[in-house]
């Protein structure tokens, strides 16, 4: 077991290192902005005094290294800084640039992050069992009519942009047959069933995109597995088809399937951005896009880091799970 533990610790370390590199990348790209933050916040026509005061406030006079470390230190303690948009608003409102009345980035992101997790969770809850079932069936009855039909359908779903799928679902399920709401105005303190109902349409769109991908990967993994000689051996021992699948295929299929699932959950993260915008869903993706448009750097940085962290975490989980399910590593010589 020691070697497995060693490998997992190594992977964890590698994941942390990647995250660190990513944080440097994000920080460095933001520092490649022309001018500096202060000008960016106040825009043209700002008085030099105002610029200087904000500079002082944000610590822009320090060198990039110390700024990076203070930013990183802040991030580690949950402090992502102050949103420019909020700072801007308050300065227009005439109040000073102090912190009073201004929402921090963390406070802005937290509820939206929860919303996004809820959306992704609902999508995953539908997509994963559905895709695994369809994928395994397609692998078992490969080259059948069913397999071909599924192949064409999923390929089309993967190829379509998310907003196309979203609008088609809206068209049929919201406008032509008013079953679900087309806008997802979610707020705190909503009843769960209502929240679920309002989340269902964006979740279904995500499901459509993810299921197709997940199903195809599951199918490929299972077909690969069913071609292995030990499956043939099991069949030649006269074992019932059910037992061949459950006892011989499944233990070995776990690793590839977990891998495929984690990879597709990572894909969900990117997918939410467009879909949240389409459905005006108050999640982190929409906040990210809005902040990109108005160049609200602290929010962009924070969202980007959050997305990347989730992405790296899921890939890490995939990696570790497949190590754990590999008998060669679990039972070393």
């Amino acid at each position: 077991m020691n070697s497995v533990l060693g490998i997992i610790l190594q992977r964890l370390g590698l994941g942390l290192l990647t995250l660190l590199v990513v944080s440097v990348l994000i920080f460095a790209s933001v520092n490649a902005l022309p001018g500096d933050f202060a000008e960016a916040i106040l825009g043209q026509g700002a008085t030099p005094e105002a610029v200087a005061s904000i500079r002082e406030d944000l610590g822009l006079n320090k060198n990039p290294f110390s700024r990076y470390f203070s930013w990183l230190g802040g991030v580690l303690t949950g402090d992502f800084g102050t949103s420019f948009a909020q700072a801007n608003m308050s300065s227009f409102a005439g109040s000073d640039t102090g912190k009073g009345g201004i929402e921090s980035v963390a406070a802005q992101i937290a509820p939206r992050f929860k919303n996004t997790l809820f959306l992704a969770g609902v999508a995953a809850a539908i997509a994963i069992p559905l895709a695994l079932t369809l994928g395994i069936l397609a692998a078992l009855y490969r080259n059948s009519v069913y397999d071909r039909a599924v192949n064409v359908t999923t390929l089309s779903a993967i190829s379509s942009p998310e907003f196309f799928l979203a609008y088609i679902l809206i068209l049929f399920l919201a406008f032509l047959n008013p079953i679900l709401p087309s806008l997802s105005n979610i707020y705190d303190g909503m009843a769960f069933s209502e929240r679920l109902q309002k989340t269902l349409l964006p979740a279904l769109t995500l499901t459509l995109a993810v299921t197709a991908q997940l199903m195809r990967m599951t199918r490929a993994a299972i077909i690969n597995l069913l071609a292995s000689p030990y499956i043939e051996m099991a069949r030649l021992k006269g074992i019932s088809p059910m037992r061949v699948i459950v006892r011989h295929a499944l233990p070995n299929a776990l690793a590839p399937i977990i891998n495929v699932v984690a990879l597709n959950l990572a894909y969900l993260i990117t997918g939410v951005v467009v879909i949240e915008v389409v459905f005006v869903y108050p999640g982190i993706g929409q906040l990210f896009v809005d902040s990109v448009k108005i160049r609200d750097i602290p929010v962009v940085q924070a969202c980007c880091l959050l997305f990347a962290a989730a992405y790296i975490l899921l890939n890490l989980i995939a990696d570790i799970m497949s190590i754990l399910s590999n008998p060669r590593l679990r039972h070393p010589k």
Partner: protein
Amino acid sequence: MSEQEILLSVKDLKIEGRSDETWNPIINGASFDLRKGEVLGMIGESGAGKSTVGLASMGFTRDGCRISGGSVVFDGIDLVTADAATKRSLLGKRIAYVAQSAAASFNPAHRIIDQHTEAPTQHGVYSKSESEEDAMDLYNRLRLPNPEEIGFRYPHQVSGGQLQRAMTAMAMSCRPDLIIFDEPTTALDVTTQIEVLASIRDIVEQFNTAAIYITHDLAVVAQMADRIKVLLRGDEVEESETRSMLSNPKEEYTKSLWAVRSFQRDLKAPVAINSTPVVSVQNVSAAYGKVPVLHDISFDIHPGRTVAVVGESGSGKSTAARCITGLLPPTKGVIQFDGENLPLDYRQRNRGQLRQAQMIYQMADTALNPRKKIGEIIGRPVEFYMGLKGAEKRKRVEQLLEQIELEPSQYIDRLPSELSGGQKQRVGIARSLAAEPKFIICDEVTSALDQLVAEGILRLLADLQDTLGLSYMFITHDLATVKSIADEVVVMKEGKVIEQGPKVEMFQPPHHPYTDLLLSSVPEMDPDWLTNLLDERGVDNIGDAASAKI
């Protein structure tokens, strides 16, 4: 034996395979009968459909194949038309299968013993504990080390030869009436092969199990089978008792298979004492990264001679070749060419030095660029080393093609994929000849080829040596090849040279124990060879397996 009732009767079996959406015949009507306790050897070259027939004898076809006609009657049940449940009740219980690669055929997720007991418990033959006890007994009979314990390991924790025997035990788990052995020893080294062959033969005899033994190796089948059946490209050639088949083959094709073993080069005079070797390997050690693979090896190759380097997989014989070519610069030692030191790394050698030593590879498929025409492949070294262009180059290429006995006008514009395995290997030879070298390394050049084709390649290499005065370093694990072509032999094991000397001496005792073991383990055509060998080695006493050493 002939009075016993017929167990399996295959009549006019036809099998088709699907490619490009159409069904093409693979087997055009195979027929044979198998009596209880009888062993039928099925032999043929690669692609002759042996495995397909073997599986079809169990009523099973792989994906993309189907039985299109005929019948497979096992104990009164036609497996071609039987429903799935009936077939399942026979498979594993009364008909069992032993696959070529045990490492791939054991499920990596379960312990060996759990896979062993699966068939008996599922078919209701034994309980789990009965079957486990029986497994240990079988492991004992098959002379596996630690029979009490070995089953509780996972497949990847057990060596290939032991795993192959464990699979034979698994096939025996329900005491079936028939076992299909599909090339069970092909993936093993010769010294391991002996153990597995002996245990398979003994256990089949003990339980009076009928068997179909599929292999491409004539010598192996001669030890195992009562009767032999020869297949060629999906067609049956001939079938008869082992001894009469060996002594008196009837069909041309069978005769040609048997004749292969007869090629023998004339002996050459011993090397003159003061002769300068073409290639001299002196005290060479080498390592992959930090793992040492060669330990202080030395040997010489003299002009016009063939030195065979033999050893089992992992003995370092291919690594030695990589050191000579400079692909793996040695960590210690000297490589001389015509008495001069060569730079150890090939990148530091000049064109003249690179030209003098050429290489022919085992897999002709990967040795020729699939996107280049034969003319380009052979033409490149002609142009690169000799500076010939245009018509001169083409003339030289044609000349080379003639030397390897391929009609130039017909082959010069073909792609490698349009050639057979033997023809590809010939093109590989021509490419090395194009550099007009003094010395050629032949790395297992015949082991991927069918025996008849291999024979042709060996003859060609011998002729070229006589006319061009080439020196060969012949890397091989096949001692029959060594016997037919070598002048000197170098035996390697675990990165060391165990013994070396002229061929005549090497094939006569006394020798280093490993050389003896290696040389004696190569199967011979004599059907009594295995029995005699086991008598000599003193491990034939099956009942007293505990005393047998592994």
